[in-house]
């Protein structure tokens, strides 16, 4: 699913995003990427989404080599990923429904199927009652759930949530983590980045990646 070999990212200004990373994430895995702010979590996410390209080493995501990936292939890869951004990146001026549907419109679905998938996703995140509300009228938590619904509606192979617990209290953070975990399946991997280690340290059924000073150490679900 995801394989990195000696992967490094150096930004144009010379700062290191991540350094010499080696890891293998199998399909259907739940992965927590933890570390303090600026440790390299977001750099890793940027590489997975093709926002940045590897400076050295190699990275394969769902069978796509991210080294010199073409824009057409990157587009195809991104269609297999359900991203939940830290700032949600919702389309203002549109309803909850429109925001969820927009991620499906360019995929090979009929109108009926798109409608059904959107409604299902909104139901799963508990937003069935806000379908036609403009997203700018929603609370922080609700906006986050719209972002999650948009990510999962397309049944992605990989869900990437960047700091979904960032601005939440412990209770709500756990609710969001549980919600994201519920989308993990044999076909769908879930990668969650968070700096709130305390929230996930008891999570045995997941792979943990600790990012410290741009370096990654991996502990799989068996504690290895």
């Amino acid at each position, binding site marked *: 699913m995801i394989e990195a070999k000696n992967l490094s990212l150096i930004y144009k200004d010379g700062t290191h995003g991540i350094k010499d990373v080696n890891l293998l994430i199998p399909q259907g895995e739940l992965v927590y990427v933890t570390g303090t702010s600026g440790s390299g979590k977001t750099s890793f996410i940027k590489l997975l989404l093709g926002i940045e390209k590897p400076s050295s080493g190699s990275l394969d995501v769902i069978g796509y080599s991210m080294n010199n990936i073409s824009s057409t292939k990157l587009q195809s890869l*991104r269609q297999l990923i359900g991203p939940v951004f830290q700032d949600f990146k919702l389309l203002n001026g549109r309803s909850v429904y429109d925001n969820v549907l927009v991620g499906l419109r360019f*995929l090979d679905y009929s109108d009926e199927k798109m409608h059904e998938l959107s409604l299902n996703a909104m139901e799963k995140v508990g937003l069935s009652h806000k379908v036609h509300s403009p997203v700018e009228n929603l609370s922080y938590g609700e906006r986050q759930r719209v972002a999650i619904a948009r990510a999962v509606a397309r049944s992605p192979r990989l869900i990437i949530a960047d700091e979904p617990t960032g601005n939440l209290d412990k209770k709500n953070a756990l609710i969001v983590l549980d919600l994201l975990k519920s989308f993990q399946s044999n076909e769908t991997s879930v990668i969650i980045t968070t700096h709130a280690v305390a929230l996930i340290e008891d999570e045995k059924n997941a792979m943990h990646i600790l990012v410290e000073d741009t370096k990654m150490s991996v502990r799989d679900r068996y504690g290895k």
Partner: protein
Amino acid sequence: MANRKNNIPYFIKEAAVIVKGDISSNTMSVISLSFIFFILTILFSITINLQTLITDLKEQAEISVFYEENTDLDTLKTKLQSIAGVRNITFINQENAKKEMVETLGEDSKIIDLFEYNPFSPYLEVNIELEKLSEVVNEIKDTKNVTYIRDNKEILLKLENIMSLISVFGIFILLAVSITTVFVTSHLIRQGIYINREAIGTLKLLGAPSKFIFFPYLLNGLFMTLFAGILSIGLTFVTVSYAFKMLLSTISFIKLSPFNEHMVVLAGFAILLSIVLGILGSAIGIKSTSPKIK
């Protein structure tokens, strides 16, 4: 791109959202463009009507030949008929000469009633081949008993000169209008893309193809120029109908293009031009900005 057809209502809705996002710039651009299109359609209208007038005058390639009193008409007609380039000759007596003038002047013909006698002279109406106008006129001039020849040669030449001047001027205006429209449209689209750069970035991260992302911007430009084109048709309609009324009441015998057909042609011209320039301007705006949005 899948669901291209199904997405049309979405694209239109998105185009509307883009317009709402920068309503003042869009409104000002539509107003400016409608005036630009208005100038062009008026120029086009003038060209069409001049062309109509010239064609009409050419079709009426007749000269009126006046002669001395007591001339033997049969002999004169035979002489004229033998000149190369003369098609046929019709005798117009005094009464018919008056009738023709009454028909030509229309309502203004009342002025003729002021005369206590018929002021018109009989003449021969000579239908000729236009290309041989000069030769025919010269030969008729030298014919015995001919006192005066009335022809449209000078008017035709002047009109044709004006016509070629307008054509050259028109090409420059068309070029200027096209460049201005493309520039205004592409600038507005670039501005729209810049304002919505975050939304565009999000769609890219979701894997949306460029055609899907930027089609609403193309529609935005197209709708803007199309709306400006429709507004210009309204302005042109008012102006041309007023001009037609003015011209026909002042110079009643002037031959103008039939109003309804003329307006259809002008509307078609404005619409076609606005569509082509709208698409072109939008495409340039998209092409120059889209790669910069990550």
